[in-house]
């Protein structure tokens, strides 16, 4: 398509709402406007020449809006703001009209405004004035506002830039600063990190404010730019916190440091990599009395081994990733004590032996559940996924671990049977449906009193037509992940032939932007893997917040920046939380994502303390039993991790991986050969059952540990 546009005139008026906006000093907009008048004239002449040259073609080709745009000689003479600054929540309305050189409106030409990147919502306003756009400052940040002239000949479209303006959306004004109280005694010769929160006029935490700190008397308290306060000598000083024009002052009284002696224990430790040593510094004054509120700083040096081979945390927890000899130092009030930790290699690697296979070669395999049936035999039920048509649940007799035997299958109207769960007394199975032909998905209840040949009891899709991705059976209720609403639906299955809805729980009710992926419930708590909302813990009968299985109550939430929270499994004081990440920069050979170890010893304050991450693969479903974490690590196969004792830091680097099994099928024994895509592990009676998307069911057994006292 040939463009015959010479130039244009766009009259722009700007109307703003709210008090916090400003349109900065006018400047020419777009490349044309930025040029000198002479250059513009030259360009116009050239464009006119081009236009004349192309008139014949244009007459033949142009139609619709392009015809209108091409038939006029447009001149850009208006100017646009060089910059737009507005406050969060405010709006600016653009009302633009394209006119030709005579000032006549060009009815066929179109222009549009786009934020790039789109961190702002831009939409047309409901007005009789055409070509009106509303710029709405949704959240603080910076972007660019681009406007383009749309040219088309009725069948093709091209666009020309009109202007490109930087836009800044400022946070609501700051109202106050809340300074946190010092966590330790304000003793001389100690250091403290000052912290505070800037609160906006809307009573929200300010998103962009940075607090600057000053001391009225640096000889008493000196503060660096990051808010690290050094209490230098006894005395009094005012600490001033400033942000966004708001000032908050606190007075700090520094007293003489009473610490006269520091002792650190244990003085000598012999551990393995990955073992956490709790270093205990005891402080006492000259009279030998204990000092409990003085700050202790821990540091570390390597006597043997790599310098960065171990870590000591601010709470005194030591853990080594590399074998070596490390000296830990504790200092307080100018006193110090040391201790030595010798870390030997963990050396816990165990082989994993293939015991049996239930190969599936024409359809992808999804989740599994292994159980002892009412007939006393052992069974594995496996779901199926999209490739090949995921409409079945397979029934395997796995009593003979060496020869899983396909007994039966259940066909439902679905294209993915993602999840399979069995109730505690092995009388009922619940399987999920996605991709149903009538788009009414939901879940299916199976009578498994004859576990080798399950029978469909009922189907349930009320409110669940969008599909159910995962379920959990908690007594006589099922928690279902609702693909449509991203809520957790609660279904009464006390009469499994006639399930009934009894409740629903969701994060941020009324908001659409959320994604529930999985649910696991145990001992009165439900653990919801809520993608970018992280891990959410509900009381479903634990007695912490008054929740019941049918009426859950929120307990706590742990979310982290990368999000993608996919699965969670409680074991002891920890919840093991897995990510699932596709399409990342590192995802060249498949997904990524790792296991976050979240300490829930205080269930209301979940804290991430450790991680297990295989660098070259992505985590999927997990199981934890007898001190071992089993992770189906997609292309990384099955990984087994020692999670005994206290966990801290990088478990992979610490050598806590016990075993690895490559769930790769031989040619013809899977939907794809030599391509492990481990989906889920289930430990049952000493064996590890693993479903692999590309190859079906695997039965694996770990070789005994070399030292029976070790994992």
């Amino acid at each position, binding site marked *: 398509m040939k463009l015959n546009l010479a130039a244009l005139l766009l009259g722009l008026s700007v109307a703003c709402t709210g008090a916090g906006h400003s349109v900065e000093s006018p400047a020419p907009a777009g490349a044309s406007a930025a040029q000198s008048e002479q250059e513009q004239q030259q360009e116009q002449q050239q464009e006119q020449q081009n236009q004349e040259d192309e008139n014949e073609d244009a007459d033949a080709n142009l139609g*619709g*809006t*392009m015809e209108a745009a091409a038939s006029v000689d447009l001149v850009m003479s208006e100017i646009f703001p060089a910059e737009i600054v507005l406050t969060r929540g405010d709006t600016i309305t653009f009302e633009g009209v394209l006119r030709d050189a005579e000032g006549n409106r060009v009815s066929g030409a*179109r222009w*549009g405004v*786009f*934020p*790039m990147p*789109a961190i702002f*919502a*831009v*939409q*047309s306003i*409901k*007005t*009789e004035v*055409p*070509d009106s*756009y509303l710029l709405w400052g949704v959240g603080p940040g910076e972007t660019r506002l681009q406007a*383009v002239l*749309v040219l088309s000949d*009725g*069948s*093709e*479209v091209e*666009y020309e830039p009109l202007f490109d303006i930087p836009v800044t959306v400022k946070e609501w004004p700051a109202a106050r600063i809340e300074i946190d109280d010092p966590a330790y005694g304000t003793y001389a010769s100690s250091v403290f990190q000052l912290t505070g929160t800037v609160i906006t006029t809307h009573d929200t935490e300010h998103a962009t404010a940075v607090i600057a700190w000053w001391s009225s008397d640096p000889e008493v308290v000196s503060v660096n730019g990051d808010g690290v306060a050094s209490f230098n000598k006894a005395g009094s000083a005012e600490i001033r916190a400033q942000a966004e024009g708001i000032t908050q002052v606190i007075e700090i009284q520094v007293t003489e440091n009473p610490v006269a002696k520091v002792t650190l224990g244990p003085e000598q430790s012999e551990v393995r990599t990955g073992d956490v040593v709790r270093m205990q510094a005891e402080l006492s004054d000259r009279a030998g009395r204990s000092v409990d509120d003085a700050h202790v700083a821990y540091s570390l040096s390597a006597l043997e081994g790599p310098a960065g081979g171990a870590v000591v945390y601010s709470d005194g927890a030591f853990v080594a990733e590399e074998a070596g000899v490390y000296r830990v130092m504790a200092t307080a009030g100018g006193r110090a004590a040391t201790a030595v930790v010798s870390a030997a290699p963990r050396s816990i690697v165990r082989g994993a032996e293939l015991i049996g296979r239930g190969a599936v070669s024409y359809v992808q395999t999804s989740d599994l559940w292994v159980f002892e049936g009412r007939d006393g035999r052992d069974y594995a039920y496996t779901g199926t996924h*999209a*490739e*090949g*048509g*995921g*409409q*079945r649940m397979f029934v395997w007799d796995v009593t003979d671990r060496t020869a899983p035997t396909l007994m039966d299958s259940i066909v*439902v*109207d*679905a*294209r*993915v049977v993602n999840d399979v769960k069995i109730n505690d007394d092995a009388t009922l199975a619940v399987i999920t449906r996605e*991709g149903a*032909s*009538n*788009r009414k998905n939901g879940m299916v209840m199976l009578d498994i009193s004859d576990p080798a040949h399950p029978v469909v009891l009922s189907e349930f899709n009320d409110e669940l*037509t*969008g*599909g159910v*991705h995962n379920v959990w059976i908690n007594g006589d209720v099922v928690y279902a992940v609702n*693909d*449509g*609403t*991203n809520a957790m639906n609660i279904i009464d299955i006390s009469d499994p032939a006639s399930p009934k809805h009894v409740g629903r729980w969701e994060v941020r009710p009324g908001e*659409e*932007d*959320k*994604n529930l992926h999985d649910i696991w419930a145990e001992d009165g708590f439900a653990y919801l893997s809520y*993608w970018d909302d992280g891990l959410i813990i509900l009381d479903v009968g634990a007695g912490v917040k008054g929740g019941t299985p049918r009426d859950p109550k929120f307990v706590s939430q742990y979310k982290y920046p990368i999000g993608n929270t996919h699965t969670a499994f409680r074991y002891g004081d920890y919840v093991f939380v897995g990510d699932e990440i*596709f*399409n990342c920069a590192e995802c060249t050979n498949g*997904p990524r994502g790792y296991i976050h170890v979240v300490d829930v010893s205080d269930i209301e304050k979940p804290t991430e303390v450790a991680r297990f991450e295989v660098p070259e693969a992505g985590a*999927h479903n997990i199981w934890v039993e007898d001190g071992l974490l089993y992770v189906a690590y997609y292309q990384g196969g099955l990984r087994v991790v020692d999670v005994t004792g206290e966990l801290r830091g990088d478990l992979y680097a610490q050598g806590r991986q016990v075993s690895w099994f490559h769930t790769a099928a031989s040619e013809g024994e899977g939907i794809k050969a030599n391509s492990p895509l481990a989906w889920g592990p289930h430990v049952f009676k000493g064996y590890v059952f693993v479903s692999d*998307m590309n190859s079906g069911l695997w039965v694996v057994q770990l070789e005994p540990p070399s030292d029976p006292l070790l994992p």
Partner: protein
Amino acid sequence: MKFGEMMKRVGLMVAVLSLTVAATAALYRAPDPPARYWVYVANESSDLVSLVSFGPEGAVLERDIPVGIMPMDIDGAHGIRVEPGGKHFYVTIAHGTPFGSLWKFRTSDNELADTATLGLFPATVGITPDGSLGFVVNFNLHGDPLPSSVSVVFLPMMAEVARIQTCIKPHGSRINHAGTRSYSGCVGDDQLVEISVDKMEVSRRLLLRPGKEQLLTGEPPAPEPGDGRCGPTWTLPSYDDQYVYVACNAHNEILEINAETFEIERRFKAFGKPYNLAGTNDGRLLVSSNKGAQSVSVFDIAKGEEVARIATTQPITHGVVVTPDNRYAFVSNEAIGAVRGTVDVIDLQSFERIASVEVHHQPGGIDFWKMEPLPE
């Protein structure tokens, strides 16, 4: 009547009708196609777009183009639209975490050009004749029954420039030939919604609830017990923009609505849950996919009557598109479960199914790309 029994009866009816059509058609042998025709079809449960050609050797699956982000979930390639001029095609991806998206592909090499994140379950796409704007319905099929929206996307930059709240479960987005009005049906609350393309706002609403059809000035009245449903799944502006045809999927009717007065002028008795619509560009024929009856129906628009019903090769007949020379209709059939769906080719002269090709799981959205002359 139990579902299975009902399906048997429906199947019998289709079989009888097919035999009738087949007997009529037995005297007629469809001539070889005068050109090679190309269509794109979105396979919703395989996350693949298939490129299908049809020529003298029949229908051929030429190529599959992967779409979607999460290989472990069905992302749901639902609607597809080739832009005027044919340089790009656009696919709606229904599911994300949680929002769906619109994907833009080049037809020259079938490579992804750009994407735009939209609302919940973006479904069908209407494109202005100049190719600049896409009107994408955010179907939100499985969410709570709340008013959803139509996203307006500036296609050269794949930037969403407006999100217009319309109704519950909007579907079947189409733009008139003048490029001035966007139409969509509201499966959840029985409306035809018209949007002014220039103003990007709702200009008119027509309540389609059977017996209660009326122009709306506010929100639609709540349905009363006994109210029937239209369930409008598709809109189709006539070739001359004088009418809009709406498939009342739940009421087995196709409504002819005067585009100026916004009044229903005629009702075509339909069959088997009409779902998508396509028309010949001479205003002669209208083709509906009969989603509930494994068939397509051809209507004589002048008479307002069904003139042919042709059985399709698989159930859940979904999409339909007519070639620019008005010779053929291409129809997508979802099938059920693990069975692969198909694309059938219907001869609009003989009203005969003359070709079929298996594609992937749950083919739905379908659109015409190009026709090429056959080699001498």
